[in-house]
Protein backbone atom coordinates (compact mmCIF):
# COMPACT_ATOMS: atom_id res chain seq x y z
CA UNK A 1 0.00 0.00 0.00
CA UNK A 2 1.51 3.37 -0.97
CA UNK A 3 2.17 5.96 1.68
CA UNK A 4 -0.80 8.14 2.61
CA UNK A 5 0.07 11.77 1.95
CA UNK A 6 -3.29 13.33 2.79
CA UNK A 7 -5.92 11.69 4.95
CA UNK A 8 -9.10 13.65 5.55
CA UNK A 9 -11.77 12.12 7.77
CA UNK A 10 -15.26 13.47 8.45
CA UNK A 11 -14.28 17.07 7.86
CA UNK A 12 -17.03 19.59 8.61
CA UNK A 13 -17.09 23.37 8.57
CA UNK A 14 -19.95 25.77 9.01
CA UNK A 15 -19.98 29.52 8.38
CA UNK A 16 -22.91 30.91 10.32
CA UNK A 17 -25.95 29.02 9.10
CA UNK A 18 -24.19 27.81 5.95
CA UNK A 19 -22.74 24.31 6.10
CA UNK A 20 -19.81 24.67 3.69
CA UNK A 21 -18.35 21.19 4.22
CA UNK A 22 -20.14 18.23 5.78
CA UNK A 23 -18.43 14.97 6.66
CA UNK A 24 -15.92 15.04 3.80
CA UNK A 25 -13.42 12.16 3.71
CA UNK A 26 -10.75 11.23 1.18
CA UNK A 27 -7.22 9.89 0.95
CA UNK A 28 -4.38 10.91 -1.34
CA UNK A 29 -1.48 8.49 -1.80
CA UNK A 30 2.14 9.21 -2.67
CA UNK A 31 2.58 9.87 -6.38
CA UNK A 32 -1.12 10.51 -7.00
CA UNK A 33 -2.37 13.26 -9.22
CA UNK A 34 -5.58 13.47 -7.26
CA UNK A 35 -8.60 15.24 -8.69
CA UNK A 36 -10.77 17.20 -6.30
CA UNK A 37 -13.84 17.58 -8.43
CA UNK A 38 -17.01 19.47 -7.77
CA UNK A 39 -19.21 22.26 -9.07
CA UNK A 40 -18.64 25.84 -7.96
CA UNK A 41 -19.64 26.27 -4.32
CA UNK A 42 -19.35 22.55 -3.59
CA UNK A 43 -16.91 23.07 -0.73
CA UNK A 44 -13.64 22.42 -2.55
CA UNK A 45 -11.89 25.63 -1.53
CA UNK A 46 -13.06 25.36 2.08
CA UNK A 47 -11.69 21.81 2.27
CA UNK A 48 -8.40 22.93 0.73
CA UNK A 49 -8.17 25.83 3.15
CA UNK A 50 -8.58 23.34 5.99
CA UNK A 51 -5.73 21.29 4.47
CA UNK A 52 -3.52 24.39 4.57
CA UNK A 53 -4.62 25.41 8.06
CA UNK A 54 -6.14 28.64 6.77
CA UNK A 55 -9.49 27.58 8.23
CA UNK A 56 -10.02 25.60 11.38
CA UNK A 57 -12.58 22.82 10.87
CA UNK A 58 -15.48 22.44 13.28
CA UNK A 59 -14.93 18.69 13.38
CA UNK A 60 -13.01 15.94 11.63
CA UNK A 61 -9.32 15.29 11.16
CA UNK A 62 -6.82 16.38 8.55
CA UNK A 63 -3.56 14.48 8.41
CA UNK A 64 -0.79 15.39 5.98
CA UNK A 65 2.35 13.24 5.79
CA UNK A 66 0.83 11.23 8.64
CA UNK A 67 0.68 14.18 11.06
CA UNK A 68 -2.26 16.31 12.12
CA UNK A 69 -2.24 19.77 10.53
CA UNK A 70 -3.56 21.27 13.77
CA UNK A 71 -0.56 20.07 15.81
CA UNK A 72 2.25 19.95 13.20
CA UNK A 73 1.29 22.95 11.07
CA UNK A 74 4.74 24.43 10.39
CA UNK A 75 6.54 21.15 9.66
CA UNK A 76 3.77 20.11 7.25
CA UNK A 77 3.52 23.44 5.44
CA UNK A 78 7.28 23.37 4.85
CA UNK A 79 6.70 20.36 2.59
CA UNK A 80 3.62 21.73 0.81
CA UNK A 81 3.33 24.18 -2.07
CA UNK A 82 -0.09 25.68 -2.66
CA UNK A 83 -2.06 27.96 -4.89
CA UNK A 84 -5.45 28.59 -3.35
CA UNK A 85 -8.12 30.06 -5.63
CA UNK A 86 -5.80 32.50 -7.39
CA UNK A 87 -2.23 33.59 -6.96
CA UNK A 88 -2.19 36.97 -5.24
CA UNK A 89 1.08 38.83 -5.01
CA UNK A 90 2.23 42.33 -4.08
CA UNK A 91 1.24 44.50 -7.03
CA UNK A 92 3.94 47.08 -6.40
CA UNK A 93 6.75 44.49 -6.33
CA UNK A 94 8.53 42.75 -9.20
CA UNK A 95 8.15 39.05 -9.98
CA UNK A 96 11.60 38.40 -8.54
CA UNK A 97 10.95 40.39 -5.36
CA UNK A 98 7.60 38.64 -4.82
CA UNK A 99 9.19 35.20 -5.06
CA UNK A 100 12.03 36.31 -2.81
CA UNK A 101 9.54 37.40 -0.13
CA UNK A 102 7.64 34.12 -0.11
CA UNK A 103 10.83 32.09 -0.38
CA UNK A 104 12.31 33.77 2.68
CA UNK A 105 9.56 32.29 4.90
CA UNK A 106 9.23 28.97 3.09
CA UNK A 107 11.72 27.19 5.35
CA UNK A 108 14.12 26.75 2.43
CA UNK A 109 15.12 30.23 1.22
CA UNK A 110 16.21 30.24 -2.41
CA UNK A 111 19.19 31.99 -3.91
CA UNK A 112 18.83 34.66 -6.58
CA UNK A 113 20.02 32.15 -9.19
CA UNK A 114 17.39 29.61 -8.07
CA UNK A 115 14.63 32.21 -8.30
CA UNK A 116 15.75 33.24 -11.79
CA UNK A 117 15.91 29.58 -12.81
CA UNK A 118 12.38 28.96 -11.51
CA UNK A 119 11.03 32.02 -13.32
CA UNK A 120 12.65 30.70 -16.47
CA UNK A 121 11.12 27.25 -15.83
CA UNK A 122 7.59 28.65 -15.75
CA UNK A 123 8.15 30.80 -18.82
CA UNK A 124 8.72 34.14 -17.11
CA UNK A 125 12.40 34.41 -18.00
CA UNK A 126 13.25 38.00 -18.87
CA UNK A 127 10.28 39.35 -16.87
CA UNK A 128 11.96 39.09 -13.46
CA UNK A 129 12.02 42.83 -12.85
CA UNK A 130 8.53 43.56 -14.18
CA UNK A 131 5.94 44.59 -11.60
CA UNK A 132 3.20 42.05 -10.78
CA UNK A 133 0.57 44.75 -11.44
CA UNK A 134 1.42 44.65 -15.14
CA UNK A 135 1.16 40.88 -15.52
CA UNK A 136 -1.54 39.18 -17.59
CA UNK A 137 -3.73 36.54 -15.96
CA UNK A 138 -1.63 33.76 -17.46
CA UNK A 139 1.59 35.31 -16.21
CA UNK A 140 0.10 35.64 -12.72
CA UNK A 141 -0.79 31.94 -12.76
CA UNK A 142 2.73 31.07 -13.87
CA UNK A 143 4.20 33.17 -11.09
CA UNK A 144 1.86 31.35 -8.70
CA UNK A 145 3.17 28.01 -9.93
CA UNK A 146 6.75 29.28 -9.51
CA UNK A 147 5.99 30.28 -5.92
CA UNK A 148 4.46 26.85 -5.31
CA UNK A 149 7.46 24.92 -6.63
CA UNK A 150 10.33 27.12 -5.49
CA UNK A 151 11.02 25.32 -2.20
CA UNK A 152 10.74 21.90 -3.87
CA UNK A 153 7.68 20.67 -1.93
CA UNK A 154 6.65 17.01 -1.75
CA UNK A 155 2.95 17.84 -2.00
CA UNK A 156 1.55 20.38 -4.43
CA UNK A 157 -1.99 21.70 -3.97
CA UNK A 158 -3.42 23.52 -6.95
CA UNK A 159 -6.85 25.06 -6.64
CA UNK A 160 -8.32 25.76 -10.09
CA UNK A 161 -4.88 26.46 -11.62
CA UNK A 162 -6.11 26.78 -15.21
CA UNK A 163 -9.01 29.15 -14.59
CA UNK A 164 -8.89 32.03 -17.03
CA UNK A 165 -5.92 30.71 -18.98
CA UNK A 166 -5.77 30.62 -22.77
CA UNK A 167 -5.67 27.17 -24.43
CA UNK A 168 -1.88 27.15 -24.66
CA UNK A 169 -1.63 28.15 -21.00
CA UNK A 170 -3.96 25.30 -20.01
CA UNK A 171 -1.86 22.80 -21.99
CA UNK A 172 1.34 24.14 -20.42
CA UNK A 173 -0.04 23.75 -16.88
CA UNK A 174 -1.28 20.23 -17.64
CA UNK A 175 2.09 19.24 -19.04
CA UNK A 176 3.82 20.77 -16.05
CA UNK A 177 1.68 18.74 -13.63
CA UNK A 178 2.38 15.55 -15.54
CA UNK A 179 6.11 16.33 -15.56
CA UNK A 180 6.05 16.90 -11.80
CA UNK A 181 4.46 13.49 -11.33
CA UNK A 182 6.46 11.54 -13.88
CA UNK A 183 9.90 13.12 -13.47
CA UNK A 184 9.89 14.10 -9.81
CA UNK A 185 7.27 11.75 -8.34
CA UNK A 186 5.47 14.67 -6.70
CA UNK A 187 2.03 14.20 -5.24
CA UNK A 188 -0.46 16.67 -6.64
CA UNK A 189 -3.94 17.55 -5.42
CA UNK A 190 -5.74 19.30 -8.23
CA UNK A 191 -9.02 21.00 -7.47
CA UNK A 192 -11.15 21.78 -10.46
CA UNK A 193 -14.64 21.99 -11.81
CA UNK A 194 -13.21 21.24 -15.25
CA UNK A 195 -14.07 17.61 -15.92
CA UNK A 196 -11.83 17.22 -18.95
CA UNK A 197 -8.88 18.46 -16.95
CA UNK A 198 -9.40 15.86 -14.21
CA UNK A 199 -9.97 13.12 -16.79
CA UNK A 200 -6.78 13.97 -18.65
CA UNK A 201 -4.40 14.38 -15.72
CA UNK A 202 -5.63 12.59 -12.63
CA UNK A 203 -5.28 8.93 -11.69
CA UNK A 204 -7.56 9.18 -8.63
CA UNK A 205 -10.33 11.56 -7.63
CA UNK A 206 -13.05 12.45 -5.21
CA UNK A 207 -16.29 14.10 -6.27
CA UNK A 208 -17.66 16.61 -3.83
CA UNK A 209 -21.08 18.23 -4.03
CA UNK A 210 -23.03 20.42 -1.64
CA UNK A 211 -20.27 20.04 0.91
CA UNK A 212 -20.27 16.23 0.89
CA UNK A 213 -17.84 13.77 -0.69
CA UNK A 214 -19.93 11.55 -2.96
CA UNK A 215 -17.52 9.11 -4.49
CA UNK A 216 -13.77 8.48 -4.35
CA UNK A 217 -11.56 6.15 -6.32
CA UNK A 218 -9.47 5.45 -9.37
CA UNK A 219 -10.66 7.60 -12.28
CA UNK A 220 -10.67 4.79 -14.87
CA UNK A 221 -12.27 2.27 -12.47
CA UNK A 222 -15.00 4.69 -11.52
CA UNK A 223 -15.83 5.18 -15.15
CA UNK A 224 -15.62 1.51 -16.21
CA UNK A 225 -19.02 0.54 -14.94
CA UNK A 226 -20.75 3.27 -16.89
CA UNK A 227 -22.52 3.26 -20.24
CA UNK A 228 -20.72 4.70 -23.20
CA UNK A 229 -22.08 7.13 -25.71
CA UNK A 230 -21.53 5.76 -29.22
CA UNK A 231 -21.40 8.21 -32.07
CA UNK A 232 -22.08 6.55 -35.43
CA UNK A 233 -21.55 8.07 -38.86
CA UNK A 234 -22.94 5.71 -41.46
CA UNK A 235 -24.75 5.49 -44.78
CA UNK A 236 -27.53 5.04 -45.54
CA UNK A 237 -28.54 6.40 -42.14
CA UNK A 238 -32.21 5.38 -42.45
CA UNK A 239 -31.20 1.77 -42.98
CA UNK A 240 -28.77 2.00 -40.10
CA UNK A 241 -31.53 3.28 -37.79
CA UNK A 242 -33.77 0.38 -38.84
CA UNK A 243 -31.03 -2.08 -37.99
CA UNK A 244 -30.57 -0.44 -34.61
CA UNK A 245 -34.32 -0.57 -33.87
CA UNK A 246 -34.47 -4.22 -34.87
CA UNK A 247 -31.48 -4.92 -32.63
CA UNK A 248 -32.83 -2.98 -29.63
CA UNK A 249 -36.42 -1.65 -30.00
CA UNK A 250 -36.14 0.57 -26.90
CA UNK A 251 -33.03 2.37 -28.19
CA UNK A 252 -33.22 6.19 -28.25
CA UNK A 253 -30.76 8.26 -30.22
CA UNK A 254 -29.89 11.87 -30.86
CA UNK A 255 -29.32 13.12 -34.37
CA UNK A 256 -25.95 14.81 -34.80
CA UNK A 257 -26.08 16.55 -38.16
CA UNK A 258 -27.44 14.71 -41.21
CA UNK A 259 -25.22 11.69 -41.21
CA UNK A 260 -24.51 10.93 -37.57
CA UNK A 261 -26.41 9.77 -34.52
CA UNK A 262 -25.36 9.06 -30.94
CA UNK A 263 -26.87 6.72 -28.38
CA UNK A 264 -26.00 4.98 -25.10
CA UNK A 265 -24.47 1.52 -25.30
CA UNK A 266 -22.58 -0.88 -23.08
CA UNK A 267 -18.97 -1.55 -23.98
CA UNK A 268 -19.59 -5.30 -24.45
CA UNK A 269 -22.32 -4.64 -27.04
CA UNK A 270 -20.11 -2.72 -29.49
CA UNK A 271 -18.53 -5.69 -31.37
CA UNK A 272 -21.94 -7.34 -31.97
CA UNK A 273 -23.49 -4.10 -33.16
CA UNK A 274 -20.61 -3.40 -35.54
CA UNK A 275 -20.90 -6.87 -36.99
CA UNK A 276 -24.66 -6.46 -37.42
CA UNK A 277 -24.28 -3.15 -39.27
CA UNK A 278 -21.66 -4.61 -41.62
CA UNK A 279 -23.81 -7.70 -42.30
CA UNK A 280 -26.67 -5.36 -43.27
CA UNK A 281 -24.43 -3.60 -45.80
CA UNK A 282 -24.31 -0.37 -43.86
CA UNK A 283 -21.22 1.66 -44.69
CA UNK A 284 -19.56 2.82 -41.48
CA UNK A 285 -17.53 6.01 -41.82
CA UNK A 286 -16.81 6.49 -38.13
CA UNK A 287 -17.66 4.83 -34.85
CA UNK A 288 -16.63 6.79 -31.77
CA UNK A 289 -17.25 5.54 -28.26
CA UNK A 290 -17.27 8.31 -25.66
CA UNK A 291 -17.25 7.81 -21.98
CA UNK A 292 -16.92 11.26 -20.50
CA UNK A 293 -16.43 12.20 -16.95
CA UNK A 294 -19.06 14.81 -17.63
CA UNK A 295 -21.74 12.15 -18.10
CA UNK A 296 -20.52 10.35 -15.01
CA UNK A 297 -20.32 13.52 -12.98
CA UNK A 298 -23.80 14.71 -13.92
CA UNK A 299 -25.24 11.32 -13.08
CA UNK A 300 -23.48 11.19 -9.71
CA UNK A 301 -24.31 14.76 -8.77
CA UNK A 302 -27.97 14.35 -9.68
CA UNK A 303 -28.37 11.15 -7.69
Amino acid at each position, binding site marked *: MPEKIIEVRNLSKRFGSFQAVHDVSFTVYKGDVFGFLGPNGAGKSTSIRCL*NSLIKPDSGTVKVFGESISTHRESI*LGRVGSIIEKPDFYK*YLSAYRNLEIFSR*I*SGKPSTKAEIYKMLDFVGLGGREKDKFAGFSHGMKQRLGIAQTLLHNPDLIILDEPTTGLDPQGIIDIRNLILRLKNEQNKTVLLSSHNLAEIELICNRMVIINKGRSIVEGNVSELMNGENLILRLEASPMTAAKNVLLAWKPSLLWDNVGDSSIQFPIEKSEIPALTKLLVENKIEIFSLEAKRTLEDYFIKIVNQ
Partner: protein
Amino acid sequence: MILINSIYNEIIKIALKPRSYLGLAAITVLVGVIQFALKADGMSIISFVTSSFEQTLSFEGNVLNGNLVAFIILQMLIVQIPLLIALVTGDLVSGEAAMGTIRMLATKPISRIQLLLSKFIAGGIYTLLVIIWLGMMSVVLGKVLFGTGDMMVLNSDGLVILQEADINWRYLGGFAVAFLALFTVSSLSICLSCFTDNSIGPIVATMALILLFTIIGTLDVRVFDPIKPYLFTTHMASWRSFFEDPLPVADILRSCAVLVAHNVVLISVSLYTFHRKDIQS
Protein backbone atom coordinates in the same frame (compact mmCIF):
# COMPACT_ATOMS: atom_id res chain seq x y z
CA MET B 1 15.44 32.71 12.06
CA ILE B 2 12.10 32.65 10.24
CA LEU B 3 10.90 35.54 12.44
CA ILE B 4 13.92 37.62 11.40
CA ASN B 5 13.26 36.74 7.74
CA SER B 6 9.65 37.75 8.16
CA ILE B 7 10.59 41.08 9.80
CA TYR B 8 12.98 41.68 6.89
CA ASN B 9 10.11 40.92 4.46
CA GLU B 10 7.83 43.39 6.22
CA ILE B 11 10.47 46.10 6.13
CA ILE B 12 11.05 45.49 2.40
CA LYS B 13 7.29 45.71 1.78
CA ILE B 14 7.00 48.97 3.72
CA ALA B 15 10.12 50.38 2.05
CA LEU B 16 8.89 49.61 -1.46
CA LYS B 17 5.31 50.79 -0.92
CA PRO B 18 4.92 54.37 -2.21
CA ARG B 19 2.41 55.18 0.57
CA SER B 20 5.15 54.77 3.19
CA TYR B 21 6.89 57.90 1.92
CA LEU B 22 3.78 60.04 2.26
CA GLY B 23 4.44 60.45 5.98
CA LEU B 24 8.06 61.43 5.51
CA ALA B 25 7.15 63.78 2.66
CA ALA B 26 4.36 65.34 4.73
CA ILE B 27 6.74 65.93 7.66
CA THR B 28 9.29 67.49 5.31
CA VAL B 29 6.71 69.85 3.82
CA LEU B 30 5.01 70.75 7.12
CA VAL B 31 8.28 71.38 8.96
CA GLY B 32 9.55 73.35 5.97
CA VAL B 33 6.45 75.54 5.95
CA ILE B 34 6.61 76.17 9.73
CA GLN B 35 10.33 76.95 9.59
CA PHE B 36 9.80 79.30 6.64
CA ALA B 37 6.99 81.08 8.52
CA LEU B 38 9.09 81.42 11.69
CA LYS B 39 12.08 82.62 9.71
CA ALA B 40 9.95 85.20 7.94
CA ASP B 41 7.85 86.46 10.86
CA GLY B 42 8.91 84.51 13.95
CA MET B 43 9.91 87.44 16.13
CA SER B 44 6.46 88.97 16.04
CA ILE B 45 5.02 85.69 17.30
CA ILE B 46 7.64 85.57 20.06
CA SER B 47 6.91 89.19 21.01
CA PHE B 48 3.22 88.37 21.27
CA VAL B 49 3.98 85.52 23.71
CA THR B 50 6.57 87.42 25.77
CA SER B 51 4.72 90.75 25.91
CA SER B 52 3.11 89.89 29.25
CA PHE B 53 6.53 89.32 30.83
CA GLU B 54 8.35 92.29 29.33
CA GLN B 55 7.52 94.61 32.25
CA THR B 56 9.38 92.35 34.70
CA LEU B 57 11.86 90.51 32.44
CA SER B 58 14.12 91.47 29.59
CA PHE B 59 14.94 88.94 26.90
CA GLU B 60 18.35 89.08 25.30
CA GLY B 61 20.21 86.92 22.83
CA ASN B 62 18.84 84.55 20.19
CA VAL B 63 15.39 83.83 21.62
CA LEU B 64 13.99 82.32 18.42
CA ASN B 65 16.69 79.68 18.16
CA GLY B 66 16.64 76.11 16.81
CA ASN B 67 15.73 74.65 20.21
CA LEU B 68 12.58 76.75 20.52
CA VAL B 69 11.68 76.30 16.85
CA ALA B 70 11.87 72.50 17.25
CA PHE B 71 9.62 72.70 20.31
CA ILE B 72 7.05 74.79 18.44
CA ILE B 73 7.15 72.38 15.50
CA LEU B 74 6.69 69.32 17.68
CA GLN B 75 3.74 70.89 19.48
CA MET B 76 2.08 71.71 16.18
CA LEU B 77 2.76 68.39 14.43
CA ILE B 78 2.25 65.82 17.16
CA VAL B 79 -1.48 65.83 16.32
CA GLN B 80 -0.87 64.95 12.66
CA ILE B 81 1.85 62.33 13.07
CA PRO B 82 -0.54 59.57 14.31
CA LEU B 83 -2.46 59.84 11.03
CA LEU B 84 0.76 59.39 9.08
CA ILE B 85 1.66 56.34 11.16
CA ALA B 86 -1.82 54.78 10.88
CA LEU B 87 -1.77 55.31 7.12
CA VAL B 88 1.00 52.71 6.85
CA THR B 89 0.44 50.42 9.84
CA GLY B 90 -3.36 50.35 9.51
CA ASP B 91 -3.26 48.11 6.48
CA LEU B 92 -0.36 45.86 7.41
CA VAL B 93 -2.84 43.02 8.00
CA SER B 94 -6.13 44.12 6.41
CA GLY B 95 -4.36 45.45 3.30
CA GLU B 96 -2.84 42.03 2.80
CA ALA B 97 -6.23 40.43 3.39
CA ALA B 98 -7.79 42.72 0.77
CA MET B 99 -4.96 41.93 -1.67
CA GLY B 100 -5.14 38.20 -0.93
CA THR B 101 -1.47 37.98 -0.01
CA ILE B 102 -2.26 37.14 3.62
CA ARG B 103 -3.59 33.81 2.31
CA MET B 104 -0.31 33.16 0.54
CA LEU B 105 1.71 34.10 3.64
CA ALA B 106 -0.44 31.94 5.91
CA THR B 107 0.27 28.82 3.84
CA LYS B 108 3.99 29.16 4.61
CA PRO B 109 5.68 27.36 7.50
CA ILE B 110 5.70 30.37 9.78
CA SER B 111 3.40 30.49 12.78
CA ARG B 112 0.69 33.13 12.70
CA ILE B 113 2.05 34.59 15.92
CA GLN B 114 5.48 35.08 14.32
CA LEU B 115 3.85 36.49 11.19
CA LEU B 116 1.89 39.08 13.17
CA LEU B 117 4.77 39.88 15.53
CA SER B 118 6.94 40.64 12.51
CA LYS B 119 4.31 43.16 11.41
CA PHE B 120 4.26 44.82 14.85
CA ILE B 121 8.06 45.02 14.85
CA ALA B 122 8.16 46.39 11.30
CA GLY B 123 5.45 48.91 12.27
CA GLY B 124 7.61 49.91 15.25
CA ILE B 125 10.68 50.34 13.03
CA TYR B 126 8.67 52.52 10.63
CA THR B 127 7.39 54.59 13.58
CA LEU B 128 10.95 54.99 14.84
CA LEU B 129 12.10 56.15 11.39
CA VAL B 130 9.29 58.71 11.26
CA ILE B 131 10.29 60.00 14.71
CA ILE B 132 13.97 60.15 13.72
CA TRP B 133 13.06 62.03 10.54
CA LEU B 134 10.90 64.42 12.56
CA GLY B 135 13.83 64.95 14.94
CA MET B 136 16.24 65.54 12.08
CA MET B 137 13.93 68.01 10.40
CA SER B 138 12.86 69.91 13.52
CA VAL B 139 15.86 69.84 15.87
CA VAL B 140 18.87 69.40 13.57
CA LEU B 141 17.61 71.52 10.67
CA GLY B 142 16.13 73.99 13.16
CA LYS B 143 19.55 74.50 14.77
CA VAL B 144 21.16 74.85 11.34
CA LEU B 145 18.66 77.49 10.20
CA PHE B 146 18.01 79.34 13.46
CA GLY B 147 21.18 78.77 15.46
CA THR B 148 21.21 77.58 19.04
CA GLY B 149 20.81 79.08 22.49
CA ASP B 150 18.87 78.83 25.76
CA MET B 151 15.29 77.71 25.41
CA MET B 152 12.24 79.48 26.66
CA VAL B 153 9.17 77.30 27.28
CA LEU B 154 5.80 78.59 28.34
CA ASN B 155 3.79 75.96 30.17
CA SER B 156 0.90 75.89 32.62
CA ASP B 157 3.18 76.79 35.56
CA GLY B 158 4.66 79.78 33.79
CA LEU B 159 7.82 80.53 31.86
CA VAL B 160 10.69 78.03 32.06
CA ILE B 161 14.16 78.92 30.86
CA LEU B 162 16.34 75.92 30.00
CA GLN B 163 20.10 76.27 29.57
CA GLU B 164 21.46 75.38 26.14
CA ALA B 165 23.62 72.59 27.57
CA ASP B 166 20.57 71.15 29.34
CA ILE B 167 18.41 70.68 26.25
CA ASN B 168 19.62 67.85 24.00
CA TRP B 169 18.95 65.05 26.52
CA ARG B 170 15.46 66.48 27.03
CA TYR B 171 14.79 66.17 23.32
CA LEU B 172 16.08 62.57 23.36
CA GLY B 173 13.78 61.73 26.26
CA GLY B 174 10.88 63.58 24.66
CA PHE B 175 11.32 61.71 21.38
CA ALA B 176 11.53 58.39 23.26
CA VAL B 177 8.16 59.05 24.94
CA ALA B 178 6.71 60.32 21.66
CA PHE B 179 7.87 57.09 20.03
CA LEU B 180 6.11 55.06 22.72
CA ALA B 181 2.92 57.06 22.15
CA LEU B 182 3.10 56.66 18.38
CA PHE B 183 3.92 52.97 18.71
CA THR B 184 0.66 52.69 20.65
CA VAL B 185 -1.10 54.24 17.65
CA SER B 186 0.68 51.71 15.43
CA SER B 187 -0.39 48.83 17.71
CA LEU B 188 -3.97 50.11 17.78
CA SER B 189 -4.18 50.31 14.00
CA ILE B 190 -2.63 46.84 13.52
CA CYS B 191 -5.02 45.45 16.15
CA LEU B 192 -8.03 46.94 14.33
CA SER B 193 -6.53 45.64 11.09
CA CYS B 194 -6.85 42.07 12.41
CA PHE B 195 -10.64 42.36 12.58
CA THR B 196 -11.36 43.28 8.98
CA ASP B 197 -10.37 42.60 5.39
CA ASN B 198 -10.89 46.24 4.42
CA SER B 199 -7.65 48.20 4.16
CA ILE B 200 -9.09 51.68 4.75
CA GLY B 201 -11.35 50.78 7.70
CA PRO B 202 -8.63 50.38 10.36
CA ILE B 203 -6.94 53.65 9.32
CA VAL B 204 -10.20 55.60 9.64
CA ALA B 205 -11.16 53.76 12.84
CA THR B 206 -7.76 54.54 14.42
CA MET B 207 -8.16 58.23 13.67
CA ALA B 208 -11.75 58.20 14.91
CA LEU B 209 -10.67 56.63 18.22
CA ILE B 210 -7.83 59.13 18.66
CA LEU B 211 -10.27 61.95 17.99
CA LEU B 212 -12.87 60.52 20.38
CA PHE B 213 -10.38 59.94 23.21
CA THR B 214 -8.84 63.38 22.67
CA ILE B 215 -12.28 65.02 22.93
CA ILE B 216 -13.08 63.02 26.08
CA GLY B 217 -9.70 64.05 27.48
CA THR B 218 -10.27 67.74 26.88
CA LEU B 219 -13.93 67.89 27.92
CA ASP B 220 -14.25 69.30 31.39
CA VAL B 221 -17.00 66.89 32.39
CA ARG B 222 -16.76 65.12 35.73
CA VAL B 223 -18.18 61.82 34.48
CA PHE B 224 -15.10 61.29 32.29
CA ASP B 225 -12.59 62.11 35.02
CA PRO B 226 -12.06 58.52 36.22
CA ILE B 227 -11.16 57.25 32.72
CA LYS B 228 -9.03 60.16 31.55
CA PRO B 229 -5.77 58.94 33.18
CA TYR B 230 -6.14 55.60 31.37
CA LEU B 231 -6.70 56.95 27.85
CA PHE B 232 -3.55 56.67 25.77
CA THR B 233 -4.32 60.02 24.14
CA THR B 234 -3.93 61.69 27.55
CA HIS B 235 -0.30 60.55 27.52
CA MET B 236 0.50 61.39 23.91
CA ALA B 237 1.68 64.86 24.96
CA SER B 238 3.86 63.51 27.76
CA TRP B 239 6.97 64.29 25.71
CA ARG B 240 6.40 67.89 26.84
CA SER B 241 7.10 66.88 30.45
CA PHE B 242 10.78 66.66 29.53
CA PHE B 243 10.78 70.43 29.10
CA GLU B 244 9.60 71.16 32.63
CA ASP B 245 11.92 72.08 35.46
CA PRO B 246 12.16 70.18 37.74
CA LEU B 247 11.53 67.08 35.65
CA PRO B 248 8.24 65.40 36.69
CA VAL B 249 9.74 61.90 36.75
CA ALA B 250 6.72 60.26 38.38
CA ASP B 251 4.35 61.70 35.77
CA ILE B 252 6.61 60.56 32.92
CA LEU B 253 6.91 57.06 34.36
CA ARG B 254 3.15 56.86 34.87
CA SER B 255 2.57 57.89 31.25
CA CYS B 256 5.08 55.33 30.04
CA ALA B 257 3.41 52.62 32.13
CA VAL B 258 -0.04 53.45 30.70
CA LEU B 259 1.33 53.42 27.14
CA VAL B 260 3.19 50.14 27.67
CA ALA B 261 0.04 48.60 29.19
CA HIS B 262 -1.94 49.70 26.12
CA ASN B 263 0.63 48.08 23.85
CA VAL B 264 0.61 44.82 25.81
CA VAL B 265 -3.20 44.64 25.66
CA LEU B 266 -3.43 45.62 21.98
CA ILE B 267 -0.70 43.19 20.88
CA SER B 268 -2.19 40.35 22.96
CA VAL B 269 -5.69 40.91 21.54
CA SER B 270 -4.23 41.02 18.02
CA LEU B 271 -2.25 37.80 18.45
CA TYR B 272 -5.23 35.98 19.92
CA THR B 273 -7.56 37.18 17.15
CA PHE B 274 -5.17 36.55 14.29
CA HIS B 275 -4.20 33.12 15.59
CA ARG B 276 -7.83 31.98 15.66
CA LYS B 277 -8.97 33.77 12.53
CA ASP B 278 -10.30 31.83 9.54
CA ILE B 279 -8.56 33.25 6.50
CA GLN B 280 -11.22 33.40 3.82
CA SER B 281 -9.91 36.24 1.66
